[in-house]
């Protein structure tokens, strides 16, 4: 059985870009946990008792997802977690916009170079969700090709 490995460049770029975005967001939140907690509180979506735990849980999960995305063998896991994270951000931002309870996304904390409106932050979250979904579709397509190749050999 001949084994050839080709580098899937779009897949690699998508993984690196997503990993960078998630790692930056995680570090920004971890550098100012009080600010992130204030932003989470303004969403009025979570019980107050869970806020302090969410303040650490979300960035740690983002960081783990970023690490998974950099590992080729763990790309499906990273893509799924990325989809779940960005979906939750999209839903939270939509809730914040509808209830007019937020003025600041808090996605990148104090590391945002310019103030981003909630609507712009929602668009950004949707783009990240789309990128994560595309990556997952690519991974599934590659796996189907590999399964077919294994069946034929």
């Amino acid at each position: 059985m001949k084994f050839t490995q080709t580098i899937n460049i779009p897949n690699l770029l998508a993984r690196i870009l997503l990993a960078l975005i998630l790692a930056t967001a995680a570090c920004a939140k971890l550098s100012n946990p009080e600010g992130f907690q204030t932003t989470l509180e303004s969403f009025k979506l979570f019980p107050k008792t869970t806020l302090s735990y969410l303040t650490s849980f979300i960035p740690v999960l983002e960081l783990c997802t970023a690490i998974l995305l950099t590992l080729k063998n763990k790309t499906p896991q990273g893509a799924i977690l990325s989809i779940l994270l960005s979906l939750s951000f999209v839903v939270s931002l939509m809730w914040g916009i509808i209830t007019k309870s937020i003025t600041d996304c808090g996605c990148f904390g104090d590391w945002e170079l310019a103030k981003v409106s909630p609507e712009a932050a929602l668009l950004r979250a949707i783009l990240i969700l789309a990128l994560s979904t595309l990556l997952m579709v690519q991974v599934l397509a590659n796996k189907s090709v590999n399964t077919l190749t294994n069946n034929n050999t």
Partner: protein
Amino acid sequence: MLNKINCREISQDILAIVLSSLIISLLLTKGEELKNRKSTATLLSPNTTELPIRTISSGDLQTLLDNNINGNKITTTIIDTRENIFYQLGHIPQAINVPISESEKFYQTTMQTLKGMEKIIVYCARQSCDDSEKMAKQLTNMGYTNVVVYKGGYDAWKDWEGSKKEQPQ
């Protein structure tokens, strides 16, 4: 069969990551709570009562800036607590940069300059940032009673400047 094994492996990995993140976040939160208790005990001695931190509006800040130079003497110090890179990108006029991460060094070397000030104004990036409150509390605990916080931060100042330009003259 291959697909079933992969799905099981993937879902096990995801569950492991989520549980690990949960445990790490629990440890971080408990650690932070312990640290806060220790630092509050250090900053506040039994004989000191914590004074409330006063805030200032954009209009009042503008007035102070306009009247700041009284003859040859500067009467108000404005402190920007953000990191230097953000200060370089833009700051409130007349503000000096003392990142909260370097505040200890500032207190040791340049505190003399604050002693003659009528007012010390502290700000950071935006409403959700509390570095300005932290520094204000530290200064208040050192004996400065003329410390106020510009709560909205640099974001509120930019909005204020924008609204001034839109108003007809």
